[in-house]
C-alpha cells in the first residue's frame, strides 16, 4: 500500500527528535526569570475534615517567605474545569474554604524565594482540622446511610438534571447514566445459560517522567503569561480567566514540550493556584511537583467496578446483557461524568448485543480526583468485557475465538446507542491477529467477514 501513496503508510520522523538527542528540547522546568519565586503547598493530612484554623504566623516569620496564599486570596474560588464544553458541575475550589475532601488536597500555598524555604515554611503552617468520617469505597458511598460528601446530597452525579451545565436544568434525573435497548427481560427468559461476572480495576497513575511544572509571570497591564506542562492550553486559559475575573484575552498560555502526559496533563490541576499566587505577589512564580505529589495528588485513571450478566443461547450468541458500572470520580467532578458516559456506552465492547440494560454510576469518594487517561472510559471497560467474553465461552464450552467471531459487529447492525455500523472490521482484525500470533483458525471462521 505504501508504494501508492506519498504519506499514507510512510514513516514520519518525530520532528522533536534532534532536540531530544542533543538535550535542547525545552520543557517548562527550564523556564526561569529573575526574581522568580517558588511554591510549596500545605496539604491535608486527612481524607475528609472541617478546617477549623489555619495559623500561618510561624511560617510567615521564616526569612525568604513572601506570602502565604489561602482561599481568601482567590478572586473567584471555583475551579470551572471543563464547564465550557459541558463537563461539570464546577464543584472544586481553587483552595478549600472550610472543608478538605481528600488526603493531600492543597489547603494553602507558601510563596518563597526558593524551593527549600517554601518547603520549610510549609511545614510550619499549623492547620487545625476536625476529622470527619471519609467515604473511601464506591459501594459504601452509594449506600443510603453513607456520609454525604457532595453539595447536592447524593454521592453520585445526577444525569439529566442539568447539573453539568450541558443539559436543561430542573428535571429530576437519575443517579446513573442509562443505556437501554431492546427487551432485556425477554432475552434473559429465553437464555439457555446466564453468566455473571464482577470486574475491578484500581486507579492507575499516568506516571509521566516529567512531573507537573508551572511558571506564571504577571505582565504589564494586568496580563499574565503561564508556562505549563499541559495537554490542553485552552482549558488552562478558561479556568484562570474565570478564577482571576479577567478577560481570557489577558492570559497567554504557553505549552512547551511535554515530558509525557498520557491524559494526566489534560485537567488544569494547579495552574490556577500558580496564577493566583503570581498575581497576588506580582512576581513570576514557579511550582514543580515532586514525584510523591505526582502519585498522590495528580489525577489517576479512575478505579472501576463492573458487574455484568449475560444471557446466552446454546448456539453461542449473546442475547442480552445487564451491567452496572461504578466509576470512582474521587472527591471532585473533573471529567468523570463524561468518562462514565464513554464507559457505559462501551459496555457492549465491539460485539452485537441486541438487548441491553446498562447503568453507569459516577461515584464520589474522598480520594484524589480521577480523570482522563489514554482510551479514557474504554480501556477500563474493555478489560471487563473481554474477561466476560472468555467466561461466556468457557461456560458454553465453545472456543473463545469462535465465540468472538460469532458475536462481532457486522456492518448494517446498530449499536446499543442506535448508531448504524458501517465501519466494522473486527472479524478481519481478529484473522490478522490470529495469523500474527500463530493461531490456526478453522476454515468456517476464516470464511466469515464483517459484511455478512
Amino acid at each position, binding site marked *: 500500500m505504501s508504494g501508492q501513496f506519498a504519506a499514507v503508510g510512510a514513516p514520519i520522523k518525530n520532528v522533536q527528535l534532534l532536540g531530544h538527542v542533543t538535550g535542547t528540547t525545552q520543557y517548562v522546568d527550564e523556564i526561569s526569570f529573575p526574581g522568580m519565586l517558588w511554591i510549596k503547598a500545605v496539604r491535608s493530612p486527612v481524607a475528609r475534615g472541617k478546617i477549623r484554623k489555619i495559623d500561618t504566623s510561624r511560617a510567615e516569620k521564616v526569612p525568604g517567605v513572601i506570602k502565604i496564599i489561602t482561599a481568601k486570596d482567590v478572586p473567584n474560588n471555583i475551579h470551572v474545569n471543563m464547564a465550557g464544553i459541558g463537563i461539570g458541575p464546577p464543584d472544586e475550589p481553587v483552595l478549600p474554604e472550610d472543608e478538605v475532601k481528600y488526603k493531600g488536597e492543597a489547603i494553602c500555598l507558601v510563596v518563597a524565594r526558593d524551593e*527549600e524555604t517554601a518547603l*520549610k515554611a510549609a*511545614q510550619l503552617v499549623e492547620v487545625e482540622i476536625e476529622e470527619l468520617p471519609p467515604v473511601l469505597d464506591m459501594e459504601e458511598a452509594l449506600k443510603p446511610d453513607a456520609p454525604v460528601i457532595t453539595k447536592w446530597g447524593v454521592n453520585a452525579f445526577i444525569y439529566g438534571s442539568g447539573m453539568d451545565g450541558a443539559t436543561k436544568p430542573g428535571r429530576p434525573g437519575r443517579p446513573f447514566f442509562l443505556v437501554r435497548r431492546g427487551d432485556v427481560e425477554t432475552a434473559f427468559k429465553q437464555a439457555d445459560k446466564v453468566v455473571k461476572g464482577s470486574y475491578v480495576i484500581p486507579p492507575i497513575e499516568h506516571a509521566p517522567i516529567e512531573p507537573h511544572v508551572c511558571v506564571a509571570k504577571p505582565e504589564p497591564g494586568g496580563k499574565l503569561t503561564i508556562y505549563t506542562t499541559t495537554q490542553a492550553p485552552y482549558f488552562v486559559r478558561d479556568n484562570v480567566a474565570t478564577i482571576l475575573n479577567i478577560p481570557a484575552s489577558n492570559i497567554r498560555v504557553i505549552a512547551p514540550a511535554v515530558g509525557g502526559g498520557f491524559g494526566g496533563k489534560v485537567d488544569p490541576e494547579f495552574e490556577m493556584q500558580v496564577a493566583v499566587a503570581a498575581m497576588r505577589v506580582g512576581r513570576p512564580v514557579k511550582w514543580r511537583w515532586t514525584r510523591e505529589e505526582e502519585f498522590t495528588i495528580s489525577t489517576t485513571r479512575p478505579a472501576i467496578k463492573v458487574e455484568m450478566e449475560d444471557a446466552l443461547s446454546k448456539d453461542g450468541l449473546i442475547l442480552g446483557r445487564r451491567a452496572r458500572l461504578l466509576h470512582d470520580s474521587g472527591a471532585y467532578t473533573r471529567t468523570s461524568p463524561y468518562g462514565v458516559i464513554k464507559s457505559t456506552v462501551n459496555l457492549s465492547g465491539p460485539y452485537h448485543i441486541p438487548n441491553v440494560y446498562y447503568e453507569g454510576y459516577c461515584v464520589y469518594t474522598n480520594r484524589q480526583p480521577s480523570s482522563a487517561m489514554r482510551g479514557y472510559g474504554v480501556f477500563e471497560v474493555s478489560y471487563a468485557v473481554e474477561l466476560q467474553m472468555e467466561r461466556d465461552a468457557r461456560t458454553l464450552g465453545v472456543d473463545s475465538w469462535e465465540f468472538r467471531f460469532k458475536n462481532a459487529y457486522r456492518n448494517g447492525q446498530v449499536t446499543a446507542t442506535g448508531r448504524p455500523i458501517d465501519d466494522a472490521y473486527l472479524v478481519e482484525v481478529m484473522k490478522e491477529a490470529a495469523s500474527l500470533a500463530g493461531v490456526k483458525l478453522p476454515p468456517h471462521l476464516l470464511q466469515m467477514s464483517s459484511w455478512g
Partner: protein
Amino acid sequence: MSQVASGYYAPASLRDAISLKRRLREKALFVAGGTAAVQLVSKMIAEPEAIISLEKVPLDYVKIRGNVVEIGATTPISRLLETRGLPTALREAAENIHGLALKDMATVGGNIFTPAPAGDIATALLSLDATLVLRGTRGVRTVPLSKFYRGPLKYNIKADEVLTAIRIRRPPRLSSFLKQTPWRYSGPTIASVSVGLDLDKNKKARRVMVAIGGLTTHPYRVKRAERLLTSKKLTSELIEEAAKHLVDNVDIIDDALASSWYREVIAQVLFKKILNRFI
C-alpha cells in the same frame, strides 16, 4: 571543643574522617555513595550542619588473600562485578542492583546501613558470615554482621567509629542470592534470600548460613532453618521442612510495595529455589 563551620567536608584520609566524625557527631551527615543519604537532605528530612563525604578516603578496594576476602567500605557495587573470585551470592546480589548508575554510586559499606527495600548486599554478606571492621579514635574493633543490627536503623557502631572494611573469612564454597522485585530488571526488594553452604562429599551440609532480606528493616539470619539443614543430607523434603521456619517470630513489613503475606510466600519460594539447586 573547637567550633566547626558548616560545610562540605571531603577528608583525604581515614584519620581525618574519624576526627571530623568525633568533632561533629550528630551535626554531620556521613555520605559514602550518597544513594540513600542524599535523599535525606534533598527532601529535607535531615538538615545537617555539615556533610562528611568519604569520596576521597582510600577505601575503594577488594583484596582476596588465601581464604580471606576484604572489601573496602566505599567500594562501589560495580567493582564487585569487575572482580573475579568473589563468592557467588555477593556477585548475584551486586548484579541485581538497579542499573548502571546506581551500581557505580552505591557502596558496599553504605548498603549495610540502608534499610529495606534496599540492602541486598548486606543480605548476601550476612549469608557469608561477614565481619565488619570499625575504626575509631581508640583503635580497631571487629563486629560480626550478624551482631551489627540492634533494631530498625540502630547499629552497633560508636559515635567516633567509621566502617572501613568488610571481611569474609573462609567463604562457603557454595552460595547463592535471589531476590524478587516488582520489575523484571532489578528494583526495590520485596524479598531476598541468600544462602552460604559447605557440603561434604555425601551432600551433607557441614555449614549452612541463611539470610533473609526485604522482610524486615535489616536482613536477618534464620538459625532454626540452618540447624535443621546442618549435618543432614540435602533433600527436597528437608528443604521443604526448613522453609517452614523462615519467618518464625518475625514481624514482616506490610506496605504498598507488598503485603506481609506475599513477602513470606516469596521468601519461601526463593529459599527452596536456591537450595534445590544444590541437591
